[in-house]
């Protein structure tokens, strides 16, 4: 691992932090004061998943956990719970990144969709068990649904615009 690739690695990690900040910024923009009947996708988690599948080394555990916790704090969720579940899911994706690298996009979308639904269900379950009165089943179901629908778009942005791509077999020697 030489100096150039190491600085590039940190630049890409910085890019992820910036991306999360931009997403949070647009979430916090005071535009939506009237309650809606449905919820949009969980962008931070989706991008974390897309990056974890493509370049696991760009979203290390501590960085991802910290950013997810920050999102929990800023967006008024019970702090720590969503971050914990999403982090576990991302780690699972990282462990399967080797297999997913060789598979098709459809397989990846399916895997991620299952994880999103699983994380949402577990999140609601824990909230119910812990008696947190924050439960809105229709909202969280619509959030899971829109997240699943939005994932291909996130992949498109990650792959096309940010140029975070699965490492090809030839890249492995140079990959840090």
């Amino acid at each position, binding site marked *: 691992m030489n100096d150039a690739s190491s600085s590039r690695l940190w630049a890409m990690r910085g890019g992820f932090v910036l991306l999360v900040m931009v997403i949070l910024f647009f979430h916090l*923009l005071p535009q939506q004061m009237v309650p809606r009947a449905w919820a949009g996708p969980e962008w931070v988690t989706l991008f974390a998943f897309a990056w974890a599948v493509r370049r696991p080394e760009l979203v290390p555990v501590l960085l991802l956990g910290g950013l997810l916790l920050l999102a929990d704090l800023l967006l008024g969720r019970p702090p720590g719970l969503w971050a914990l579940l999403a982090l576990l899911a991302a780690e699972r994706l990282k462990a399967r990144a080797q297999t997913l690298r060789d598979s098709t996009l459809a397989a990846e979308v399916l895997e991620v969709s299952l994880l999103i639904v699983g994380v949402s269900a577990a999140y609601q379950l824990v909230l119910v068990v812990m008696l947190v009165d924050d439960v809105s089943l229709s909202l969280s179901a619509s959030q899971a649904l829109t997240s699943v629908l939005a994932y291909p778009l996130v992949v498109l942005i990650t792959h096309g615009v940010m140029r975070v791509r699965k490492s090809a077999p030839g890249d492995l020697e140079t990959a840090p």
Partner: protein
Amino acid sequence: MAKDRSTSQDFTGPLRRLLLAVMILVLGGIFLIWRIDSPRVERFRAAVTDSIVPNFDWAMAPVNGTVQLIRNAQSYRALAEQNEELRRELRRMRAWKEAAVQLRQENARLLDLNNVRLDPRLTHVTGVVLADSGSPFRQSVLINVGAKDGVVDGWATMDGIGVVGRVSGVAANTSRVILLTDASSRIPGVVQPSGQRVIIAGDNTAAPPVDFLENRDLVRPGDQVFSSGDGGVFPAGLLIGTVAEDPGGRLRIRLAADYERLEFLRVLRHYGIEDVPDTAQVIAPSAPLAGLEPRDE
């Protein structure tokens, strides 16, 4: 090559697993602490928000302005009819204004006759809305006045017309206002003219339903709802909205505050209602009290 990679994974594997375990413990711990001692963690959340969100401010104003501009451009198409409607409304308002001016004069006269002293502490501080809750699950806004401006948890906030919500979470420079539409918002109100006491319980919809209504027959759609001041945290007599009936027959409140555009919020300073310490001296007739007096001393 393949062997190389597996050994490098063996090398980083335990460290990664350790970091993951640490992270799981930290995140799970924070959630458990929040569940057990929520105020402390909420204060921490307010402090984090306070240190981050004001930094976004320089970018938020122009981006927000641009988004508004695009939204307005969409509504310019409907401008002609809107104009016509506004004219009609204005004509109606003129009549109301006349009535209001007369009422104000009458009110001033009556106050003068009664020699009423208005509470000088009932003043307000106005804040700008910095951010919304950022999540469809929560209905709250962040305003740019906080503990430095003397804001205290529980104070009422209004826009120009009606109650918007209650301050919940004060940091040094910012404070969070839970809107009446939030699922955790409960505000005691009174329906006029019948005087029925109700609780306005937010449920994440635009029009919060009415709860704990004693006699439904006395309340009609169109009645006005004011804050009642029960419980002492909220000042009494602030306009909340009007009663409306939803298709399911449930009474809801059409809020008077314009939630579409909350830009400035007025935080009402409120130092609680003073207790009368000894009720007997106030309520009981004086004769038996006088008889009791020697025994008391």
